[in-house]
């Protein structure tokens, strides 16, 4: 079985474009309607998050009444798994938090404080710039390494595929309005790592096939297509094993890890797709440009 992937480049790029536009659209509309592009958690915005567990179902309105006593009636109160609720509010001092907790405890003696995070606004800003620099530097590092081991056109194509993966993952998470905190950055970087691995395995095969006798006589598109097909079994098997692990984290994992796993799931699927259907056709296009000049 052999697929002619390069011949259908236009189809693959259309699919990618649609998803990227969907992601960008989600970011833009969130920004216009909700005031921020993504649902940034306290890690990024600063504030206090309280994760509470109750024995029985509590009315969110009643919790809000308690918070309103402290001028925090505008807090975001959400229900999560079971009878857990998560409260997001302005940064609270330890005293204020203790006071609020004891008020809630008076009303609901069964309440259990699972997690309380208070992040100053300065920390949030620091983290945002940290995330930005980490992403930029990691990408630059990959660009340089790939250019060094392969050719410049390969590294540009690989990085464009990474931008593709990042845009779609960020966009879809924004679309689903999932909370974005520090682990999200870790997830995005892992996705980039995986995607580049996938791409490199294919590029490595192209590099090897180009050194074979007679390779220079064949059109470059054919060599790339052959390489993609030769590595196809590996690509499919690897993505399957990784997605097994991921799916199991998504279904059975704890609350915190689920969010993480969801991001990875989207990203890995994207990364596997982009290596075959974006990064590989791109080097063929770049090669044509190179020759055209």
């Amino acid at each position: 079985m052999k697929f002619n992937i390069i011949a259908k480049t236009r189809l693959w790029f259309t699919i990618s474009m649609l998803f990227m536009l969907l992601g960008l659209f989600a970011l833009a509309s969130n920004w216009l309607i909700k005031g921020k592009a993504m649902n940034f958690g306290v890690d990024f915005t600063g504030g206090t998050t309280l994760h509470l567990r109750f024995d029985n179902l509590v009315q969110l309105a009643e919790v809000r009444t308690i918070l309103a006593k402290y001028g925090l009636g505008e807090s975001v109160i959400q229900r999560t798994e079971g009878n857990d609720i998560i409260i997001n509010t302005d940064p609270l001092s330890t005293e204020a938090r203790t006071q609020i907790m004891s008020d809630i405890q008076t009303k609901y003696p069964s309440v259990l404080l699972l997690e309380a995070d208070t992040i100053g606004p300065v920390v949030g800003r620091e983290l945002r710039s940290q995330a930005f620099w980490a992403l930029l530097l990691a990408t630059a590092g990959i660009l340089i390494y790939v250019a060094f081991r392969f050719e410049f056109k390969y590294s540009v194509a690989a990085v464009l595929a990474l931008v593709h993966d990042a845009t779609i993952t960020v966009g879809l998470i924004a679309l689903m309005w999932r909370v974005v905190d520090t682990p999200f950055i870790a997830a995005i970087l892992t996705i980039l790592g995986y995607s580049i691995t996938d791409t490199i395995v294919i590029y490595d095969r192209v590099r090897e096939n180009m050194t074979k006798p007679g390779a220079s006589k064949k059109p470059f598109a054919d060599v790339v297509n052959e390489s993609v097909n030769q590595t196809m079994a590996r690509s499919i098997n690897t993505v399957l094993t990784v997605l097994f692990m991921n799916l199991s984290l998504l279904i059975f994992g704890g609350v915190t890890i689920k969010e993480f796993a969801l991001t990875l799931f989207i990203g890995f699927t994207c990364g596997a797709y982009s290596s075959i259907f974006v990064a590989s056709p791109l080097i063929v296009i770049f090669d044509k440009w190179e020759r055209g000049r």
Partner: protein
Amino acid sequence: MIILGVFIGSIIIIINMPINLGLDLQGGSRLVLEAYDTDSVKVNDDAVSGVVAVIRNRIDALGVTEPTIQRKGSKQVVVELPGIKDPDRAIKVIGDTAQLEFVEAEWAPGDEKVLSEKKVQEFYGKGARLDKVKEYRGGEVISERPIILKSTVLTGSDLKGAWPGIDSYGNPVVDIEFTGKGADIFANVTTRNVGKPIAIILDKKIISAPSVREPISGGRAQISGNFKIDEVQDLVVKLKAGALPVPVRVIENRVIGPTLGRDSIDKSKFAGMIGLAFIVVFMIIYYRYPGFLAVLALVIYCLLNIAILALIRTTLTLPGIAGFLLTIGMAVDTNIIIFERLKEELLTGKTITVAIETSFKRAFAAILDSHVTTLIAAATLFWLGTGTIKGFAVTLSVGIVASLFTALTITHMMMSMSVDAKIINSTDSKLLYRGFHK
């Protein structure tokens, strides 16, 4: 032999050096404190080092096991207290400046309302100021008495020791003892102030202002001030450890209850097991005997990985576990790359020994390049990240290196040994691949 060595070595390390669990897994508290300038003191390197030292003393006195106290940047201190039961109390003990002052004072005359700041200075000397001594009962202020604070005569640094005690009415108090020099000053001050109050001030708040009945020469005194027993104990901790050289404020504070940690770790363990089981089944069904060897290599990989993490004393956090599980995926991928290659090499009609050698050699470039690029991402995270992100980067990096090692040496050796032992004897052995026909 090497395989056995790695195997046994890893197990010994894992048994002897348990991995620390992060706050998110065992519960606890994480604080980031930032020192700030005041009119009298500026934040500098020495001051922040001093803050770290004082906080360490206070935490040790609280009896928290395995706390971490680290400087971050030029004026921040990160404190992590695993498994602590009452984090709010700890935060108070750690974050209070605990600047203790003994101030010569005088009760203000009845018409204190007309006293301007200027007049106070005129009558009672430069630096004198008006304040109020408040009496509390059940958290409410029940009486206020104006007092004029003249000058600080002794501070917390003149203390030799502090102990919790009780006064003659059975109320909790703090017993203190001054140093030799402090005792002399105290004797002097009490001699010249008989009948007048001495204000005891903690962090700019008057805790009490007892009147001096007679000169006190022994260098011992008692601080009373409507304390609860807990407060007395905490105050003793703070006085013994000394005051913070500069005040700090809490800019980040995470409290993770032990329930959430237990919850996450149990669920993630279970999820990891299911994921692993899937991979094992898939590898053995699809790749047969080499798949089985890959699973063995994977077991060694996991042991080696955990052993390295234990050896470099990593603290395992939730993203760390995720990073670990993900590198398992990578280690499997490395094996898949090799086996797919082996399949191709066998198709070209090479003998089994030659095919194994060529496939490992050819797969090497792809494996190396893919591992290095991921390592670049992990290194960036390690370099720029903090806290949990850093933990994630560590497990990821260790995982990548261990994966490179096990796939290239252990899987390789086991394959060659199998050929030598004639377990795989021909290219069309049933053990090799499903649906493989030459």
